[in-house]
Structure formats: C-alpha cells, structure tokens
C-alpha cells in the first residue's frame, strides 16, 4: 500500500476518534453545561487502562504497569470506557455537588494537571514518562494483518464504533432525559424548581461523556500501539473544545464536522505536508495557532458553530397534525370571557 493511503487512513481514524471524543464532551458541556476542563484526563484513563489490560503481565517486558491481563479486544476497550466513567463518578461526587460552573472548571483544570503529573512521575502505574508501548494489535492472531492492512482495517473498525455510539447518543439527546440535560444547562435553579435532581442528572451526563472519552482514548492506544504523557498534555482538552465549538455545540452531526475541520484538516493534515526547508517541525507548531485563530473567529462570527443546535419542533416531538390543527389561539380566545380574551398574547407592554 502506498504512503498516501497510509496517511489517508490515519486521517480517517482520527476523524472518527475525535468524533467520539467530541460527542462525549458535547453531552457534558454542550447538553448539560458542565465545563469539563479535565476532559483529556478521562481520555488518558481510557487509553492507559485499555492498553494495560491488553498487555501481558509486566514482568520481563521492561515496562512497569498495573493490570497486564492480556485481555482481547474489545473487552479491554469496554473496560477502558468503564474505568473513565468510574473515575468520572468519583470526581463528580467530590466536585459537582458543591461547585458550580466556573469554580468547577477551575477545580477540573487542576485535576487534569494533577493526573498528568502523577502519571508522568509515578512509574509503577503506567510506566511514567515513557508511557505504554508494544500494545498488542487487536485481532492480531486472528486476522494476520500486516502493518499496512491494519491501518485501513482499524480505521473502519473505529468508524463502525463511532456510528454505533452516534446512534446511541442521538437516542439519548432526543429523549426526555436529553431535554432535562439541556434544561440544567440553560438554568439549573429552574430545573431544580421543576423537580429535577440536578446533581444526579449531571452525574449521568458526566458518566456517559466520560465513557465516550474512555473509548476514544482506548482506540488511540489500540491504533498507535503506544500512549504516553506527550499525547495528553492538559491543553489537549481545548482541542476537543475547539472541535465542538467549531462543529456546533449541542448538535451530534456538528461533532463529525468539527472533527473533520479541526482534527483532520488543521491538526493532522499539516503533519503530512512536506516540511519547509531548514525549518523542520515549523508547520506543526502553526497547528495550534491556526486552531486558536479559528476558534476566536468562530466565537466572534458564528458562535453557534458550523452545524448549529436544532430547535426541536412540536411535530418532531410527537405532536400529531391532528393535535396541532385542533387547537388555535383565536378559537380559544373567543371562548374565554371578554375581559380576559382582550389580552392577546402580543398585546402586552
């Protein structure tokens, strides 16, 4: 397989992987309003746990890590997602109950830094700064894929997982539960006054979003065969925020578009461009600048993103044509006592 296809399928992999990550952050921030500035930490947990579960016992590997159970794909991947969710529950129990919005965001960003420093320096956990490597290729024994055929194969697997997770997420965001998430996003005091248990609902949203983070992270280590702290600098969280803001907060399809624009075209594609003579690595340095500029431009000119959140109209919510036709404000107004009917809905002020 030529180099071009190798690049293309690597891009396709990251397109779908960041689609998954973006859906995870979107349900937390876009739907529920939780500013999770530690998002990349949950991605990392998914990645390390997925990798460490697939690796054999660490004895004699030259690496240090916990687990080492040699579990097959996708069992390890699922457990990576579960681990990220489990950690989200712990974090939520400690922070969400007491803190709101900006304070929560500050605590989460600190958490992200602490997670990073601990993982980077505490070698017995996930091999410190070297990270995990030589993670077995999924289905290696069964399919006998070559290095070249593995990349398109795994890009396709990731695409299939992303499709499944998209169907699940659409179902959630369309449900009454999704509406309650958005009610809390818009005004948590009102939601509580309407009988919603805000903490429990936010906990659910954290749990779901972190599962997606963990799966997205697990797929990265399965794809690359390695994962180390340089892959999840705390600032990486903002790349995922850029994906959802550019794509359109609150819209699942927007997440795919955001991933295409930010992750595929701006972050990964430039790495495959021929480097500028005498300035190796210069193009990559510009990535972050370009993403930052695009983010500011979007927030200024099109804050709703490329694919804005859709309003959910009565007809899409199960209001039958009959139900809509049968009512009419004019008819109803005529039936009311004169003094009351005089005030049309547009008559105030």
């Amino acid at each position: 397989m030529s180099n071009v296809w190798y690049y293309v399928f690597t891009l396709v992999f990251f397109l779908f992987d960041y689609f998954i990550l973006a859906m995870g952050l979107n349900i937390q921030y876009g739907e529920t309003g939780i500013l999770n500035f530690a998002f990349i930490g949950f991605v990392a947990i998914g990645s390390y746990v997925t990798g460490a579960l697939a690796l054999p016992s660490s004895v004699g590997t030259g690496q240090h890590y916990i687990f080492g159970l040699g579990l097959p794909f996708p069992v390890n991947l699922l457990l990576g997602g579960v681990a990220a969710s489990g950690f989200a529950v712990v974090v939520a129990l400690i922070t969400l109950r007491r803190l709101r919005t900006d304070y929560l965001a500050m605590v989460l960003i600190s958490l992200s830094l602490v997670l990073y420093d601990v993982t980077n320096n505490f070698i017995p956990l996930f091999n410190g700064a070297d990270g995990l490597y030589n993670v077995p290729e999924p289905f290696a024994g069964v399919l006998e894929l070559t290095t070249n055929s593995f990349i398109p194969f795994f890009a396709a697997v990731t695409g299939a997982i992303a499709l499944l997770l998209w169907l699940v997420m659409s179902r959630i965001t369309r449900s009454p539960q999704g509406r309650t998430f958005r009610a809390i996003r818009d005004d948590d005091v009102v939601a509580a006054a309407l009988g919603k248990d805000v903490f429990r609902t936010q906990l659910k949203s954290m749990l779901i979003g972190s599962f997606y983070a963990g799966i997205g992270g697990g797929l990265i280590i399965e794809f690359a065969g390695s994962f180390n702290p340089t892959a999840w600098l705390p600032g990486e969280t903002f790349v995922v925020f850029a994906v959802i803001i550019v794509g359109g907060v609150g819209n699942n399809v927007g997440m795919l578009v955001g991933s295409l624009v930010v992750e595929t075209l701006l972050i990964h594609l430039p790495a495959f461009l021929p480097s500028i003579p005498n300035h190796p690595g210069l193009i990559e340095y510009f990535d972050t600048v370009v993403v930052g500029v695009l983010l500011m431009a979007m927030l200024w000119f099109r804050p709703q993103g490329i694919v804005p959140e859709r309003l959910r109209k009565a007809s899409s919510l199960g209001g039958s044509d009959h139900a809509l036709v049968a009512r009419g404000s004019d008819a109803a107004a005529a039936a009311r006592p004169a003094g009351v009917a005089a005030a049309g809905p547009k008559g105030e002020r």
Partner: protein
Amino acid sequence: MTADPVPAPDRTTPRAALSCDGITKAFQGVRAVNGATFAVPEGLVTALIGPNGAGKTTVVNILSGSMTCDGGTERVGDAEVTNWPSHRIARLGLMRTFQLSRELGGLTVLENLLVAAPGQAGESLLNVFLRPSLVRRQERENVERALDVLDTYGLFHLRDNRASDLSGGQKKLLEISRAVMASPRILLLDEPMAGVNPALIERIGGHILDLKATGVTVLMIEHNLNVVERICDHVIVLAEGRTLATGRLGDLRENAEVVQAYLGEVIDASTHG
C-alpha cells in the same frame, strides 16, 4: 376543614397547605428574613405583600427550596420539609415562578413545558433503550397536554419559538404555564403581574382564579392592592423579614399599624407600577 371560600378569620380556618414558623435568613450579616411565620390556607389565593426589600422573594426562595434558611421550620401539609432540596419540594407538588422570568432559553416554548411534566419514564436511560414504546406514548400524552396548556395561556402559536425570543409579557405567561404543566397542588408566584400591561394583568388574574377553581393553593407576591382585593382571599403582610399581620385585606386596612407603617408605602409602590 371547610371549603368556605371566605372563612371568618376567628372561626373555621381551612387547613394550611403550606406553613412556616420563625424562618430566618441573613446575607452577609444583613437579616433579610427575621422570623417570618405564617400559614397558607388550602385551596385559597393568598397574597404576600410588603414594601420592597421586606424579604418576600427570599421567603419564596426558601419555601420552594431554591435557598436554604438559617433557622425556623417549613411544612407542606403536615410534613416538615425545612431545607429540603428544591427538587424534592417540587415533587410534593409545590411549584414556584420567578420574579424576573427565567425561561429555559435554548429550548422551545413547548419544550419548556415538557421539562416540567412530572414522572417521565424517558428520564431513565434504561427506559429510553429498553422500553421505547412506553417513553414514546408518554411523550405523546405530555405533548398533547402541554399544547392544551399553551392554548389556555395564549402561547400556542409560539410553541416552536425559542423561549429566549419571547417578549417580557409572554415570558411571564410561560413561567406560569410551565409551573401549571407540573400539575401543582401549591403554586408560589413571585410578582406574576409586575411590569405587564393592564390587559395582561386582567388575563393573568383570570388564570389564577381558574387555578383556584381546580383546587390549587396559590401564594402570590403582589404590590397592586386592587389586584389583591379582587383575587386574593387572604393576605400576609411582611415587613423587615417579619410577619406583621395576616387576615383579609379589608380587616388589614383597619389595622392602624399596617396602614401607617406599610400599606401606604405599598400603595405608593403600586401607583408607580
């Protein structure tokens, strides 16, 4: 208990749907509520009046659980619910509106009502994935009812509008209709008629009387004594965080202390709108 719409104050008093005793609340040392004690009679419309800064909104915040109090007790019916979280008080059938309308701005008008529908199976993800037909059927019923409520409140034609796009008066109507969607037993309204035109005041008054007719207990903060006179059965006067007097408006007008110290001020405020 009796269903007598205008009970003599010293005779058969209806059961209290909601009551509080010695409620206190301080903000940075300032006593906003200082021992408020009163009972809201079941099935009637009660006005909570008093000068600006008397602590009326703070009392409603505390009674609805939006805020905790420093001292005192609250009861809904016979159950003590002091400092229960908002959502648990709401689930007892107590709904409140806000003095400054707080619509769920990113949702449509219809969705604002749907959020309030009680006991939705679709708020459990297990049901969403395992019992989709139950969720769909209930959703359809809730949509039907929400459309009915919107129709009653003259918001039907705005059902698909983003709630943040409504005018001030429309937002007031949305606040009330959203609370009504929750089928409350007790409704706390914080200045439902403030800043709206006379025709709309008339209309909202009609809605409140309609709610009373269906058995809802209403406690409303209101400055306009003409409105209080026409639609409220019972009045609670709050001043400096304390209950100054309770009774019928006519009786209170004869209470020299109330008139001198507070009603004059309230009447001033109401003439300024």
